[in-house]
């Protein structure tokens, strides 16, 4: 069985067994996040603040570790900085041994999962109990967490009831969530009473006061501390923040970002060692003065190296809230048992796994991040999670062979990547070359590509799923159409003044506010969906704006999505060279394809010098964002738009990256102002995500994600389907009988033709 087939089978198995529970739960968390953060007036400012605190904390980490050690040890506690799991576990085992302890109760801690401390203690004959109900379920089931915050999210109530009834051989079977909860509470309550040692994680540790903050809901962490005399807190070194007061933005953000609660039931702030009250069940006493032992185990395990790594450092800002998992369409469908490594799950897991367990642990799931960027605005510490995934993909592409086969491919491929690069990634990463060839040889290329034999070969060799319809390349590209048209007298062709070419023929319209557009001929508009390009030209010209279509390379989105960073940078530089003189002449760069616009506005930040990036970012517009600007500044344009009264009803699916750039509302607003009746989808992603849905191993997941979008529009069968992204249009085409078009085509048809 091929590797791709194996992967597809594993994903299909998880979709069938865990998909429904994961989907329901993550959807709940995700919609809760939207609702809860919308109520928070200072949401964006708090995120900025949280980000600044984390940047500062990681920058000053050595000083913070010194400070917290001094503070806690002055009060009689111990701080141990452990190099790796073996070191940490050795220390914890010694603490347990010194205390003569037989049993340990734990509250939820992902860092302790990273250490596998339970296994280490159990090997010594110590009883270890997870008291968080989700972790308890996993302990009983002998499974790994599938989610950072809700570790048993993949299990339904029925599942858990069956598990408990069988495992504990219950005569009266448990059924309801209340019954299950009560059973677990009572069962664990006895273990908590008898326990010798309480072990917790930490959400934050303040370096100045030595306070541990625990964000919980069940109350098990509090009971764990109140009932035991020796406390061990396990935390990654990145959990330190400088001062107690800096807890505030995190307390306000963490619950909202994760499970969508304004705040969780309990935020415990304990400043150890504790001489506070507790219950001693052995002596049946409420003890008000206790003398407890405290050990803070700060875990390095690769984190120092991450701090020195310019690309992975951001991972250390992560507060493990799970927003990146909940907002991720792929995660929502398949869960952390596919979208996760040895310990961590979701988008940020790539950074954690690469950092603490090594690149190999990230390799198995890194491709599930499609770069859709829906997690970017959801992250409370503003981590560029898609970029971390891209960087790790790039490193994986380059790892292993020391470039020994590079000579074989140098000169043969149009990219900058090493010989070891997976052929599927190379194929999709070089889509620009394929598209050029496809157009040059169309329709033969389309006929040939769609022959069953070709599809079988493509599937086997390149991993392009044969069930997916291939794009049909057009023999006349959009650019060719435009140039042919410009050489007649229909349109004025603006050229940069630096260019040797003279200005083209005079146009018949006067541009409002003297604006001129450089319409970016993205790969798809140029070779496949040339109608939307033509529509954009007609619409802009009808609104009085002259249009130029430049000779310019593709944006680099395709190689970037395959982790081919060097190739993507080449493309970025090429785009910049071509566009720069136009920007200098004051032309506005208008883009149809949202994933390419997102390159100009987001991704190029990592690929181009800052000033050049900012100039392009600030000068680039999504097509309907641009139309919106024209309408807002020019009453004549507004009149032209609003003059028609279309009766069309539309169902509009915005594009993931377009929404991350907060550009969705321009399209809906313009369509509505033009008289359309519009409903919109609210799925995070259509599931196609560029090349993702074409890949043999991900086709089924892609279609499963798409099903959520199909369900949303299922009742809208009298509406015309519109979508802004190429991938979304292709996905919608595969989900619905009727075709989907770009909104600019709908608008142009009304404004220009009526």
């Amino acid at each position, binding site marked *: 069985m091929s590797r791709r087939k194996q992967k597809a089978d594993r994903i299909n198995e998880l979709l069938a067994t865990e998909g429904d529970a994961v989907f329901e*739960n993550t959807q709940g968390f995700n919609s809760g996040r939207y609702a809860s953060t919308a109520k928070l007036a200072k949401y964006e400012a708090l995120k900025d603040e949280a980000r600044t605190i984390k940047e500062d904390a990681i920058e000053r980490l050595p000083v913070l570790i010194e400070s917290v050690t001094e503070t806690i040890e002055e009060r009689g506690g111990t701080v141990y900085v452990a190099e790796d799991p073996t070191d940490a576990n050795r220390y914890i085992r010694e603490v347990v041994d010194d205390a003569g302890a037989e049993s340990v109760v734990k509250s939820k801690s992902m860092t302790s999962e990273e250490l596998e401390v339970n296994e280490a203690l159990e090997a010594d004959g110590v009883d270890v109990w997870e008291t*968080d*109900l*989700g972790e308890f*379920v996993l302990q009983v089931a002998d499974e790994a967490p599938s989610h950072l915050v*809700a570790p*048993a999210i993949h*299990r*339904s*109530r*029925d*599942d*858990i009831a069956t598990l408990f009834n069988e495992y504990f051989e219950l005569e009266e079977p448990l059924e309801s*969530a*209340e019954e*299950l*909860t009560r059973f*677990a*509470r009572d069962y*664990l*309550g006895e273990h*908590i009473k008898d326990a010798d040692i309480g072990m917790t994680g930490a959400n934050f540790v303040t370096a100045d*006061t030595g*306070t541990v903050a625990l964000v919980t*809901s*069940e*109350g*098990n962490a*509090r*009971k764990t*501390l*109140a009932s035991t005399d020796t406390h061990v807190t396990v935390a990654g070194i990145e959990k330190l923040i400088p001062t*107690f*007061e800096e807890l*505030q933005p995190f*307390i*306000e953000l963490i619950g909202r970002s994760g499970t969508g609660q*304004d*705040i*969780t*039931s*309990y*935020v*415990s*702030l*304990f*400043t*150890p060692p*504790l*001489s*506070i*009250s*507790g*219950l*001693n*069940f052995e002596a*049946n006493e*409420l003890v*008000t*003065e206790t003398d407890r032992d405290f050990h803070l185990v700060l875990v390095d395990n690769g984190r120092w190296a991450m701090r020195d790594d310019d690309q992975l450092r951001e991972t250390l800002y992560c507060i493990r809230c799970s927003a990146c998992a909940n907002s991720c369409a792929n995660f929502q469908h398949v869960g952390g048992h596919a979208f996760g490594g040895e310990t961590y799950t979701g988008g940020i897991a790539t950074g954690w796994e690469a950092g603490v367990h090594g690149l190999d642990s990230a390799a198995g799931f890194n491709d599930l991040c499609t770069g859709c960027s829906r997690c970017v605005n959801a992250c409370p510490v503003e981590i560029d999670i898609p970029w971390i995934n891209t960087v790790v993909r790039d490193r994986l592409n380059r790892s292993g062979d020391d470039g020994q086969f590079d000579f074989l491919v140098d000169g043969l491929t149009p990219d900058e990547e090493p010989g070891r690069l997976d052929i599927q990634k190379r194929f999709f990463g070089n889509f620009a070359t394929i598209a050029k060839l496809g157009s040059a040889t169309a329709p033969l290329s389309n006929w040939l590509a769609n022959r069953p034999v070709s599809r079988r070969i493509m599937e086997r060799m390149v991993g392009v799923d044969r069930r997916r319809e291939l794009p049909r390349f057009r023999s006349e590209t959009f650019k060719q159409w435009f140039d042919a048209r410009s050489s007649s007298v229909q349109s004025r062709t603006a050229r940069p003044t630096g260019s040797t070419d003279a200005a083209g023929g005079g146009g018949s319209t006067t541009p409002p506010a003297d604006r001129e557009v450089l319409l970016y001929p993205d790969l798809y508009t140029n070779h496949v969906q040339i109608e939307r390009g033509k529509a954009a030209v007609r619409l802009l010209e009808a609104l009085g704006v002259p249009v130029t279509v430049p000779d310019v390379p593709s944006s680099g989105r395709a190689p970037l999505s395959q982790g081919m960073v060097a190739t993507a940078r080449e493309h970025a530089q090429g785009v910049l060279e071509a566009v720069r003189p136009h920007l200098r002449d004051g032309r506005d760069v208008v883009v149809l394809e949202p994933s390419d616009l997102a390159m100009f506005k987001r991704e190029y930040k990592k690929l181009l010098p800052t000033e050049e990036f900012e100039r392009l970012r600030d000068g680039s517009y999504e097509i309907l964002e641009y139309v919106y600007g024209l309408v807002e500044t020019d009453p004549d344009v507004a009149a032209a738009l609003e003059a028609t009264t279309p009766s069309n009803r539309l169902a509009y699916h915005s594009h993931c990256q377009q929404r991350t750039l907060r550009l969705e509302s321009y399209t809906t607003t313009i369509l509505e102002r033009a008289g359309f009746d519009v409903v919109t989808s609210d799925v995070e992603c259509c599931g196609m995500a560029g090349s993702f849905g074409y890949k043999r191993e991900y086709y089924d997941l892609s279609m499963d994600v798409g099903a959520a979008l199909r369900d949303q529009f299922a009742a809208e069968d009298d509406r015309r389907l519109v979508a802004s992204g190429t991938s979304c249009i292709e996905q919608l085409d595969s989900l619905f009988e009727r075709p989907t078009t770009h909104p600019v085509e709908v608008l142009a048809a009304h404004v220009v033709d009526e």
Partner: protein
Amino acid sequence: MGNTAIRSFEDSIASLPATMEQVPAAEFEDAIASHLAEPAVGVSLPFEGVSLQGLPVTLSPTAEEVSAARTGITPASLAIGDYGSVVVGDRNDGAEPVSLFVNEHVAVVRASDVVESMSDAVGELGDEVRDGLQSAVVATGPSATADMGELVHGVHGPESVHVLLLSDR
């Protein structure tokens, strides 16, 4: 502090699975007596003119009494308007276990200790922590879990929370 914070606290409590009432200190005993379910355990209240003495509340309970109690009464040093949270600090008085191991936690808080924002609360707590407060919990509504497939209130901690605001304190 002041009326805005209290109004906001009332709104926040209304959106939580929690309840509250406002009474002047003179009516405190009646209010508690009519609310509590026995057996009840409590922590003596550091507020002028209010006391749990004379009520059916065990004030120096054993571990088993705490664990078996239906009601646990503690003071709260702060209440947070924006969230409906109360801050329960343990001052070696049993407040942490008494607020935790019971079915219902009744938090008694002075109207003058209601602050508006989390920022205010963290600011005041920071001072208290530096003064030696070792354990404080920002508690918002009852303990809860969704780990068993549906939302359930009352897990390891209390399943209900009642806040008694002393309107003239």
